[in-house]
């Protein structure tokens, strides 16, 4: 388990950091790409770093992810069902660091500022994808930005 997790880490690190081999006619300057999204606040993942969930939409995996959510004490911060406690709600359809599978994967695998631990080391790639599959299976409410106490 541990070795597997380490291997996964090495592969990921390699994916993230390896540069393409120098091509004939290589330039000392980076390629000029007029792509404004690259300067957007919040950052854009490099094209080579896109991950895909091998279990996307698999209900059986989501079910074991629910068990993992309790066993890894995720519910201790995000509450049972991910409804939020000292950690943010995971069931409101809104995402601090993005709600795409790969973004949720990164949050769990590497951790996030303000206290989200990095679980990649203990769970390994497949464990994290199992959790992602569970979280993405939570029933998301339609986004209703208004909360009213007046009678309609």
């Amino acid at each position, binding site marked *: 388990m541990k070795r597997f997790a380490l291997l996964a880490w090495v592969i990921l690190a390699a994916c993230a950091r390896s540069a393409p081999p120098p091509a004939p006619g290589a330039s000392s300057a980076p390629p000029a790409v007029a792509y404004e999204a690259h300067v957007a606040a919040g950052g854009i993942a490099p094209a080579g770093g896109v991950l895909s969930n091998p279990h996307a939409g698999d209900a059986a995996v989501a079910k074991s992810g629910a068990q993992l959510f*309790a066993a890894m004490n995720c519910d*201790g911060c995000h509450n049972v069902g991910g409804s939020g406690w000292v950690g943010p709600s995971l069931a409101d359809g809104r995402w601090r660091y993005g709600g795409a599978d790969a973004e949720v994967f990164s949050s769990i695998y590497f951790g996030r500022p303000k206290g989200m631990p990095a679980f990649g080391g203990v769970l390994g790639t497949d464990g994290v994808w199992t959790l992602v599959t569970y979280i993405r299976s939570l029933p998301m409410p339609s986004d209703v930005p208004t909360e009213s106490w007046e009678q309609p």
Partner: protein
Amino acid sequence: MLRLPAIRILLSCAATGICTGMAYAADAASGPVEDGQWTMPAKSYAATRYSGLAQINAQNARSLHPLWSFSTGVLAGHEGQPLVVGETMYVVTPWPNVLYAFDLRKEGHPLRWKYRPDVSSNALGVACCDAVNRGAFYADGRIVYNLLDGHTVAVDARSGRELWKTTIADMSNGETVTMAPFVVGDHVIVGASGGEFGIYGWLKALDLKTGKIVWTGHNMGPDKDMLAAADTFKPPYDGGVDVGAKSWAGDTWKSGGAPVWGWISYDPELDLIYYGTGNAAPYDPEARVGDNKWSASVLARRPGTGELVWAYQFTPHDNWDYDATGAMVLVDLTIAGKPVKALVHFDKNGFAYTLDRATGKVLVAAQFASVNWAKSVDLASGRPVIDPARQTGVSKGKVSGVCPSLEGAVSPASPPAYSPRTHLFYTSTNNLCMDYAAAHASHLRATPYIGVDFAYHPGPGGNLGAFIAWDATSGRRVWEDKESYPSWSGALVTAGDVAFYGTLDGWFKAVDARSGQLLSKFKVGSGVVGNPIAYRGPDGKEYVAVYAGIGGDWALLAGDTRSDDPTDVREPAEFMKDIARHTSQGGIVWIFGL
């Protein structure tokens, strides 16, 4: 006549710019002669939160009004209380634990300085419930307080310069620090939060001059870890060699919680400090068979050496997250015609206890809120008479309708006050019951070690909270002011016979200490979970100060009152659907006067 010495003390403070320390507690019940200051969290070593000031009284309190306010710039729950030393008010914020020093001599109270420590944001993920701080302690020209990420700091009260910073707690083991330190002589006494992280709970003493750790006493474990010696450790009921380890299945004491996040008090005559311990971890009691001593207990130690002198467990084998970290108030009472050196404690478990503080023996134990987990407390054995139907555990599944809820019949963060004039205690209460389904939890360092699914319901009567007056000699409620929401603020009572408290929906209230009649109220901008104080300003007038700033427990508040994070939008709590209609987050220091 009492005024003269008080004014002289104040003048000497003014002349030097800072006071050199307060008089030793002459009388444990009423504290030192009133000097108009508020130099420690609970006003006196006896933790009475009683001010001898009487300018504001039951006749004129109707004209109380706000005179000054200041936004702390921080949005977490503002528990704790300001200090007033000489002509300076000191305010500690929740994480990132900024310390503000306000000049009370000048119009608008501009800052003399502010101190901004470098506090790790990782602590926000290790604190169980919110990034709170319960205040500072003034001693020997220093402001001493704790940082959420496991440090204690001493700051020069005059200049704001950092004098020392000591690492006391280990976040990688689930420890954070939210309590206010307590200074006795040369020792700064501190403890750590982490009952939800399976810590090995402890109390430490640091040297006030240097910050060096002098002693560490654990709250459970073998006698040597607990600083308990067979000839000097005399618990009033059950003890025995290594009872702090033997009352836990296997080595479960090593991750058994029993944190220290509440208040400490001190009796100079007996030379004992008193403090409560939190819940046993995890929340599934079947994972830690036994009494789990000394979780959910009060411990009495020598401040100089840390030696454990006695301990009493309010909730043996805690099944319900009934922390005993609430204040231990030291008062001299007359019970059945006999004078008693008493310790009075309002526990999360719904019983108010009056103990003999020399021995730990229970004299009175009575329900001050709706309780059904136990029928009574047997005074001969000191043990609660438990209703087996309310016991929890994984094998029992969901146990419904347990009262009080795991928020407690009162939050330990909401300390009571005692008036030697009315001989009554004043405290906030919660009227909540719960369904409790224990679940397996695995102990993974620095992650929560809890294991429960729970839901709250309003208790009998439907009001979710109250502010009450209590007679600790008879165990009787004298009056009650019902509140629509859980009552989460500390209490203050003054020689003007006025009691003060705040509400979760953001009212700050003054009531007649004898009748409970409302005298004045003001909407302070956010729910109140802090503790009011009274002080005499440089102009000789009496003022009352309190924090507004809802928070402290996002399980209770459901996060519906938050507006600070567009990516965290929660459903209202089922049991309290409209609290967000009346308040949202904020962090404001208020001063009231006539």
